[in-house]
C-alpha cells in the first residue's frame, strides 16, 4: 500500500531523514520507534503533506500513486490520515460541522454521494459509540478547551469517521493516562482491517501493548537502523535506544 523509497528530507537546510525505506501492506500495523529528534514526526508529516519539509530525494507512493506531488487534501481524498501529535484548536467551528464537511469532501472526491444531515447524524452516532466520545465534545468547537486525552480521543474519532486507507498515528500515546490509552487503542484496533494499514509512531513501547504491531522499525538519526517483529519493541524497552543507535555512530565515525 505505502512504499517509501530512499527518502531524504531537509528542514531549514538541516537533513532530518537520510534515506528511509519502508513498505507497508494492507492489513499490517507498523510501529516506528526512536528517540527524540530521530525524525519520526518528520516522516509522519511528510506522508501527510505538511509544509516546511523539503524532500531532496526519494519517493513516497500510496497504491502506486505519487503522494509527494499531491496537496494535503488530495492525500486525504486518496485515503491518508494523520492523527496529530498536537491536535489544533479551531475556535468557532463545531466538531460536528468540521467532520461533516471533511467526510463529504472525501466522499465527493471518491465518487460517493454526500451524506445529508440525517444520514450523517446516524453515522456519527454509531462511530461515537465505537470511540466512546462524549456528545458534548461533538458540539464544541474543534479541540477547543479539550484536555490532552480528549484531543487524542477526538483524533481517533476522526479516524473512525473518515475510515482512511492509511492511518499514521503521531505520538498518539503522549500525554495519555492508562485509561485513555486503552480507549484510544481500542478505537484503533476496531479500525484495523485487511483493507487498511496503520503506522504507529511512538517513543515508548507502552502503546504497543495495546496496539500490537506486525513490524517494528527503529529510527535513529534519520535512518531505520533496525526492523523486526513485535518483540523488538520489548527488547528496546529493556535495552534502550543506545543498543541500536551505537552502530550508526560507529558507521558515521568511519
Amino acid at each position: 500500500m505505502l512504499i517509501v523509497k530512499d527518502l531524504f528530507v531537509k528542514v531549514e537546510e538541516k537533513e532530518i531523514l537520510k534515506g528511509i525505506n519502508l513498505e507497508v501492506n494492507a492489513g499490517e500495523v507498523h510501529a516506528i520507534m526512536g528517540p527524540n529528534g530521530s525524525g519520526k514526526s518528520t516522516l509522519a508529516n511528510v506522508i501527510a503533506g505538511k509544509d516546511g519539509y523539503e524532500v531532496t530525494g526519494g519517493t513516497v507512493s500510496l497504491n502506486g500513486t505519487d503522494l509527494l506531488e499531491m496537496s494535503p487534501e488530495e492525500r486525504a481524498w486518496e485515503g491518508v490520515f494523520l492523527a496529530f501529535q498536537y491536535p489544533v484548536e479551531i475556535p468557532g467551528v463545531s466538531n460536528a460541522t468540521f467532520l461533516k464537511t471533511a467526510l463529504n469532501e472525501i466522499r465527493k472526491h471518491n465518487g460517493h454521494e454526500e451524506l445529508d444531515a440525517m444520514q450523517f447524524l446516524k453515522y456519527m452516532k454509531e462511530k461515537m459509540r465505537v470511540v466512546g466520545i462524549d456528545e458534548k465534545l461533538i458540539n464544541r468547537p474543534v479541540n477547543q478547551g479539550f484536555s490532552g486525552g480528549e484531543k487524542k480521543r477526538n483524533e481517533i474519532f476522526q479516524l473512525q469517521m473518515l475510515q482512511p486507507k492509511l492511518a499514521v498515528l503521531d505520538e498518539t500515546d503522549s500525554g495519555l493516562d492508562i485509561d485513555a490509552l486503552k480507549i484510544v487503542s481500542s478505537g484503533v484496533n476496531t479500525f484495523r482491517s485487511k483493507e487498511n494499514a496503520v503506522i504507529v509512531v511512538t517513543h515508548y513501547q507502552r502503546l504497543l501493548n495495546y496496539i500490537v504491531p506486525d513490524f517494528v522499525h527503529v529510527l535513529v538519526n534519520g535512518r531505520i537502523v533496525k526492523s523486526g517483529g513485535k518483540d523488538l519493541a520489548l527488547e528496546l524497552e529493556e535495552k534502550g535506544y543506545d543498543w541500536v543507535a551505537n552502530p550508526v555512530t560507529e558507521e558515521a565515525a568511519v
Partner: protein
Amino acid sequence: METIKEKYISDFRKAEENMNGEASTAFHQFRKSAIAKFDELGFPSLKNEDWKYTNISPLFNYEFTKGADLNISKKEVEKYMIKGLDENVIVFVNGIYSEKHSSIKKQQTGIVIESLKNVIKNNAGLILDHIGKIAEIDNGFTALNTAFAGEGAVIFVPDNAAVNGHIHLLNITGEKDRNILTQPRHIIITGKNCNVKIIESYHSTGSEANLVNAVSEIAVGEGSIVEIYRLQQENESSFQINRTHALQSANSTFTHYSVTLGGGIVRNDTNIKLDAENCTGNLYGLYLTEGNQHVDNHTLIDHAKPHCQSNEMYKGVLNDRSKGVFNGKVFVREDAQKTNAYQSNKAILLTDTASIDTKPQLEIFADDVKCSHGAAIGQLDDEAVFYLRSRGIGEEMARTVLIRAFANDIFETIENDAFHEHLNHLVFEKLK
C-alpha cells in the same frame, strides 16, 4: 476657480431659490445654519486627528450630482430584499424616496414610518426637536448632510406601541455614466417601552463611483429596545460616509451591527450616548475587505450616567491591499459610576499588503468602573489550515471555514435568526 466646497455652497443657494414657501420654514432655517457650519468647517483632511488615517481626497476627482428617481424594476429591488426582515420596506433610489417600491404594513395608530420628504412637508414638528440635536454638526460631512436634508426615513414610535415587523431602509444608488450623490438623513424616535428593529442597507446598481453621505439619528426612549443592522454592500469604486448617533434614555438597550462588505472608501462614525441610568449599548462590527478597499470605523461610547453597560466588538478580515482603521473611544464621565464597558477589536490580515491602524481610546473620569479593552491583529493560523486540509477540506474551503470561524464571536451575539442567516450567507458569498 470654484472649489468643491464653494460648489456645494452655491448649489445650496440655487436650491434655496427654487424652494418657494419651504424656504421660510423652521426646518429650512435649520438647514441654513448647517450650510454656514459647512462653510466654516469644510471637508476634513488628514490633518484632522479624527481623519488621520482616511484620505478622502480621491472623492474630489469626481463631480457628484443628485440623481434621478430612476424607473428601476421591481425585480431589481427584490434582489436586495432580505427574507424574514422585509415586513416594512422604505426604498430609496438614488437617494430619492420611491413610493412605488416601498411597502408598509398596517401599524398601530401613532406609529409613523414615512419618508423624511413627506414628514418635512406635513409633519415637521415631529422631528424638529431631534434632528441635529443627537448628531452634533462637528464635521463637514455632517454639516453638508444637514444642509441638504430632504430625503431619508422617519420612524416614530409612540409610548408602548409595538411595531409590526422589521423596517428595512433600502438604499439603491447608481446611474449609467454618472456619479451620484445621495445624502440620506434617517431619524428614528421611540417613546417608552418600544421594540424596534431596523435594517439599513446600501447597494450600488452599477460600477460607477457614487457618494453616499448618510446621517442617522436615533432617540431611544425609556425602557425601549432598538436594534439597527447596517449592511454596506456598495461597489468598490464608491464612497460612503456614514454617521450614526444614538441617544439613550433610562433602562433602554441600543444594539448596532455594522457590516461592511463593499465600498471603495467607507468611513463610519457610530456613536452612542448612554444618557441615563441602567442603559445597555452594544456596538458590533464585521468588515471583510479586498482589493483596494478602505474601511474606517470610528466609534464613540459616551457613558454619561451611572449603572450603564456597553459591549463593543469589531472584527475585520482584510485581503489584498485593503486597509482598515478602527478607532474606538470609550468615554466615562465623572458621574458615570458603576459603568461596565467592554471593548474588543480584532483583525486578520490575509496578505502582507493588507493593513490596519487600530486605536482603542479609553477616557475614564469616574473611579468606580469596570472597563476593559483588547486589540489583536493576526493572520490565519497555518497549523489550523493544514489540520483542515489533512482531513480532506480543500485549501480555499479551509481558509473560508477559518475566516467564518473568526467572525463567529460576532454571530454569537446575534439573537435575530433571520439576520443571522442572512449575514452568514453574505459572508460565504463574499469569501467565494
